[in-house]
């Protein structure tokens, strides 16, 4: 027989030939033709055009031919629903056939033809088949109910098939029971709240009886169904366990694992002091170990499950370490999983053996495996304190091999060892430093930098080492940049005298030249911390770190519980809840372990299950930890955050050395005449001080209004440095965006900036460099003039620029009507000034909207004789209120505006702003 020839025909006109052959009178020829059709179908050719011809072959006594035609029908019926009806009669007839194999075949195939019209015809034959005298037909019909339910759930319910299916649970034939259970379980999954699978002690008893008699697959269906049952009490639980344990000796691994699932779940309910509980624990280990002599794919699934079981009940396999030793010929996926479990089982008793093995693995070929082995050595050190020293020396041996990825991995784990045992193994630092150059992976570089920063006081050339990393700062990954920033700050706090320049350099790199918000934020926090209160900075940055916990990579308990309920399934392979990878309603319900009964001692985590949906522990430290930069690696438990906020008051600025009190004073008290009340001053200063964005222009999200930059300092005047800039107000913060262009030949470094004292107390948010303030005798001509000094390595340059006063309008500048009226009256008329805005073609509403976007708020509108009067208010950052009355005459392009303010000096500016906004 050489049926393989059917796979090769690719002639033109093939379809026509097939058509002719299908309509041939000779049975053999027909059959050959159908075979060809099926072969074409398999390789993906479209043979749907032959539908009527193939269906014509359906009427035959030849079972083999019939099956082929059915196969064709299943594939193509959906694309030709009308023609599929042609087949219905044959199906209905076949369902009455005296041969049970044919009856079953018909009902099985009908269920696979997912055409609505056919399902109507399916109901009657199905009803008969569910009550057929032959068990083979009944077991097929049971599955057919699930098929029909998948097509049309309502129909199944209306036709009462579910009740018939339930009756089949009591069928005399075990296989019928098993299939009925499988079908019901599947249907129940899509109706989470229905009591479809009415599991009560009687049905459970029936299932347990069938369990002993049905096929291996049937046993799996029944066990998986049993796992969803919650026994009423510990006695029932025990009796079910007793009847399930024999399954642990089944040759089929799936039967074994499903039995393990049932036992693991029901065990929760057994009192821990019960003898039986101990017996059961002992019985679980051997079958789990036996699974490891199955085929590699099954081993893999078993190992993924054992990983869960070991986390839930470590006592089961604690003496079985050896079976998880890696064999040279194991597939890589088995090796990696075994390694994981070895680490989980490592204890003082077996650590010597484990370490010897791990060292052996670290010399293998597969890079991933070797890395994991090296990492495992580190984890052993953290887990078993007695072994730490040996682990460290093993790691040092491995570093000596100079194999690049081994060295890098070793350094990463040594960092963790330092976290667990501070001040114990510093002697190895010298060896680590030797390998600095070979580190090219971010994680290893970051770990090394962390070590250097942490032990900066003991490393003579720590500053040199860190400086060498700083050169390529922008090419590093974020992880390394963050570590470098922190390490240098640590270094500075430890050796302030020699490293001032370094710290300034890294701070400006982090804040000015980076567009990574994490890095910038961290940079600013350090900066403020250092400038505000170096003592507090020390407390924060050099705070004692919480020791990292020994158990690593544990699955979060609620998720673990859910996964235990899914032992053997894909969820347990992925270590994810079914809802994470199953679409639709199936698997959305979260399964939970039953609470333990009887035992009062030992608060079982299972009993204390919370309602929170399970989630995988994030692999990175939480946000807070990251922000505070306590180097909380993923392996740590987050300690209570140290009190950092105290040092972050914005108003009290203290530039690095703390020796500039006078300047500080100047900066932070605004002109007394302008401050309205102490409280508002502080508030507005908070905003003001925060405003200055040195990294301006780089990757900033663009606001609504973005005026073009103007040249503030031409290059001619500043030895090649050109500064252009603009002021914008975004989200309540005034930002000064500057572009600094180097038009000179030489490199400019050491930039710093300083503002002269000005009317509205604008000051850089980030403290910069100590600078001589500008000579105060310069007259402040326009109020909104800002005199700026920028320093670089060449010289200090002074320039002035004007910022639009609208920058200073704060968002809460909308006054209450009553207050407005009172204030308006209260302000002497001398302070009122009137202006004309010409050639403005907006109507009053549009104007109002436009102004609102610049934080000028319309409080009320009055229309008198066709003239709109808009009453508006705005508030400056320093708390000055400006009140305005805008008169708009319909058809007249000229507006009249009256401004009233306690500080009339600003009126001119405000007017100009009105003009700018309305005409823009």
């Amino acid at each position, binding site marked *: 027989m050489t049926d393989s020839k059917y796979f090769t025909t690719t002639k033109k006109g093939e379809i026509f030939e097939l058509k002719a052959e299908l309509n041939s009178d000779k049975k053999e020829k027909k059959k050959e033709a159908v075979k060809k059709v099926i072969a074409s179908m398999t390789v993906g050719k479209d043979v749907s055009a032959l539908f009527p011809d193939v269906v014509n072959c359906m009427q035959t006594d030849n079972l083999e031919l019939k099956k*082929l035609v059915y196969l064709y029908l299943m594939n193509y019926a959906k694309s030709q629903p009308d023609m599929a009806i042609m087949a219905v009669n044959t199906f209905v007839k076949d369902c009455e056939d005296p041969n049970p194999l044919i009856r079953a075949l018909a009902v099985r195939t009908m269920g696979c033809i997912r055409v609505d019209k056919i399902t109507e015809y399916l109901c009657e034959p199905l009803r008969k088949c569910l009550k057929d005298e032959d068990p083979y037909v009944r077991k097929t019909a049971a599955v057919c109910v699930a098929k029909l339910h998948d097509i049309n759930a309502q129909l199944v319910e209306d036709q009462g098939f579910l009740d018939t299916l339930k009756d089949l649970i009591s069928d005399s034939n075990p296989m019928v029971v098993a299939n009925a259970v499988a079908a019901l379980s599947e249907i129940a999954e899509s109706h989470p709240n229905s009591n479809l699978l009415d599991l009560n002690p009687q049905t459970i008893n029936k299932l347990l009886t069938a369990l002993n008699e049905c096929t291996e697959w049937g046993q799996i269906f029944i066990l998986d169904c049993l796992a969803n049952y919650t026994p009423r009490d510990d006695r029932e639980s025990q009796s079910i366990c007793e009847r399930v344990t024999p399954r642990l000796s089944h040759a089929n691994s799936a039967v074994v694992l499903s039995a393990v699932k049932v036992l693991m779940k029901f065990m929760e309910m057994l009192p821990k002091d019960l003898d039986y509980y101990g017996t059961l624990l002992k019985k679980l280990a051997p079958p789990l170990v036996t699974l490891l002599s199955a085929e590699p794919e099954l081993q893999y699934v078993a190992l993924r499950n054992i990983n869960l079981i070991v986390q839930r009940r470590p006592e089961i396999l604690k003496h079985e370490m050896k079976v998880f030793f890696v064999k040279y010929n194991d597939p890589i996926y088995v090796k990696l999983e075994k390694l994981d479990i070895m680490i989980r089982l490592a204890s003082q008793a077996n650590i010597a*053996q484990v370490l010897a093995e791990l060292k052996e693995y670290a010399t293998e070929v597969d890079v991933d495996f070797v890395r994991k082995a090296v990492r495992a050595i580190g984890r052993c050190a953290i887990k078993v304190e007695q072994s730490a020293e040996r682990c460290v020396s093993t790691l040092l041996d491995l570093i000596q091999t100079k194999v690049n990825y081994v060295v890098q991995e070793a350094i990463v784990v040594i960092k963790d060892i330092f976290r667990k045992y501070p001040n114990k193994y510093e002697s190895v630092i010298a060896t680590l430093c030797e390998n600095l150059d070979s580190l090219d992976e971010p994680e290893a570089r970051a770990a090394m930098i962390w070590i250097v920063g942490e032990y900066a006081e003991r490393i003579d050339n720590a500053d040199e080492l860190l400086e060498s990393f700083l050169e390529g700062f922008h090419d590093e990954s974020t992880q390394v940049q963050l570590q470098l920033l922190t390490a240098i700050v640590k270094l500075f706090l430890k050796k302030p005298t020699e490293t001032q320049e370094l710290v300034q350099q890294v701070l400006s790199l982090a804040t000015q030249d980076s567009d990574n918000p994490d890095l910038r934020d961290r940079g600013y926090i350090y900066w403020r911390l250092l400038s505000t209160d170096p003592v507090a900075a020390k407390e924060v940055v050099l705070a004692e770190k919480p020791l990292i916990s020994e158990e690593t990579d544990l699955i979060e308990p609620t998720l673990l519980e859910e996964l235990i309920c899914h032992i053997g399934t894909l969820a347990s392979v992925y270590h994810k809840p079914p809802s994470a990878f199953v679409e639709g309603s199936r698997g959305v319900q979260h399964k939970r372990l039953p609470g333990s009964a009887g035992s009062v001692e030992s608060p079982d985590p299972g009993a204390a299950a919370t309602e929170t949906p399970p989630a995988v522990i994030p692999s990175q430290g939480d946000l807070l930890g990251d922000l505070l930069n306590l180097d909380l690696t993923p392996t740590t438990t987050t300690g209570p955050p140290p009190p950092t906020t105290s040092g972050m008051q914005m108003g009290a600025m203290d530039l690095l050395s703390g020796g500039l009190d006078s300047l500080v004073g100047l900066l932070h008290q605004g002109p007394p005449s302008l401050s309205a009340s102490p409280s508002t001053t502080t508030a507005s200063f908070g905003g003001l001080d925060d405003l200055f964005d040195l990294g301006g222009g780089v990757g900033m999200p663009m606001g609504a209004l973005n005026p073009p930059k103007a040249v503030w300092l031409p290059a001619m005047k500043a030895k090649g440095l050109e500064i252009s800039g603009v002021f914008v107000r975004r989200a309540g913060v005034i930002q000064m965006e500057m572009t600094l262009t180097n038009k000179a030949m030489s490199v400019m470094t050491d930039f710093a900036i300083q503002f002269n004292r000005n009317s509205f107390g604008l000051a850089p948010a980030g403290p910069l460099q100590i600078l001589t303030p500008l000579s105060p005798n310069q007259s402040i001509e326009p109020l909104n003039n800002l005199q700026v000094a920028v320093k670089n390595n060449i010289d200090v340059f002074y320039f002035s620029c004007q910022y639009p006063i609208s920058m200073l309008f704060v968002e809460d500048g909308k006054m209450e009507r009553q207050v407005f009226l009172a204030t308006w009256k209260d302000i002497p008329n001398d302070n009122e000034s009137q202006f004309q805005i010409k050639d403005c073609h907006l109507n009053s509403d549009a104007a109002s909207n436009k102004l609102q976007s610049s934080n000028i708020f319309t409080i009320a509108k009055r229309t008198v004789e066709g003239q709109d009067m808009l009453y508006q208010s705005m508030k400056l950052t320093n708390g000055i209120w400006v009140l305005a009355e805008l008169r708009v005459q319909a058809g007249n392009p000229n507006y009249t505006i009256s401004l009233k303010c306690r500080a009339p000096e600003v009126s001119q500016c405000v007017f100009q702003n009105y003009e700018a906004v309305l005409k823009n």
Partner: protein
Amino acid sequence: MIGGLFIYNHKGEVLISRVYRDDIGGPLNGVMILLDAFRVNVIHARQQVRSPVTNIARTSFLHVKRSNIWLAAATKQNVNATMVFEFLYKMCDVMAAYFGKISEENVKNNFVLIYELLDEILDFGYPQNSETGALKTFITQQGIKSQTKEEQSQITSQVTGQIGWRREGIKYRRNELFLDVLESVNLLMSPQGQVLSAHVSGRVVMKSYLSGMPECKFGMNDKIVIDKQGKGGGSEDVAKSGKQSIAIDDCTFHQCVRLSKFDTERSISFIPPDGDYELMRYRTTKDIILPFRVIPLVREVGRTRLEVKVVIKSNFKSSLLAQKIEVRIPTPLTTSGVQLICMKGKAKYKASENAIVWKVKRMAGMKESQISAEIELLPTNDKKKWARPPISMNFEVPFAPSGLKVRYLKVFEPKLNYSDHDVIKWVRYIGRSGIYETRC
């Protein structure tokens, strides 16, 4: 449950494609896209297969590979993964029982049969009875076989029945029974001769040609059973038999064995399938007889030479003979030449396998033999040291390294008149090397 089952050749061409559920894709294009996805991501993946379970486009693929053939099951649900893999293996067994080796040629030649089988043993993705004994009664490639009504109901009751693995009415003129105890002994030894791990995984394989529906009972020197009996009998008995009993860590049985009976009485009783089957598998770790000891000596002489000496010692009764002995000594990738001297057998350096293979046909117990090799290496700048894979060994010995002994195998057939004594029984013990490695 399983949404679809596909068979590919090594090129990733689809040989068999059977869809059970619509959720894995529509009838036409959807499935083709999935088939392609698996081919691209797994069969043609650049890297070595990292997991037998792959999730592509929210569809899980579980696959196994037999020679050049890939079998993959696709699903969108949270299926019982263990069951799917067991099923895939079973599928391989069934196919092998029908047409021999699973090769591209055989699959193509039997594709109609495979579709028929897939229709029968997987319904809506639920595995159904897959015992070849039962399947062969009604899935034949002989065309139409008109069955009488009795035959039909016999088939269906067998397929669904409690004893799905055996049909009624089997008759033999000579009732015969072959029992093989096949053990593979696994060892991992340190260079210093310390046993790092050792276990025996054994199988009891039977071939039974028995008439009727015989009830069988199998007994072996299981420590638990013997201790139990010892309690009943005299203390002398315990001392006598206790020595010879072995501690079985765990065992699993063919589905014909009554597991609940084993659980309570630890007795192995069953109605055997006809012909070949595997009655049980077991594992032992205590008091294993390690038939061979390998003593490696590796010395690096300078950077371009390696001296290897390996001594093997046989450790069993001198009256017994081990066969098919093969020692495999890995050599570095930079090997340029090898000189070999061995006391016994033949040794060869196989450059393509990077190993020295030393073969000895036979070796009696309590003997010793050795091989020495001088390996020339090419000088390299590679800093990475040679990983030194372990020395592995293969052999076959005529005893069970676990110490397992068959005590009895009783056959009762109440309906037919033949007794236990009339059954001719053959028992054989074979110990083979599993993964038998010594690190060097």
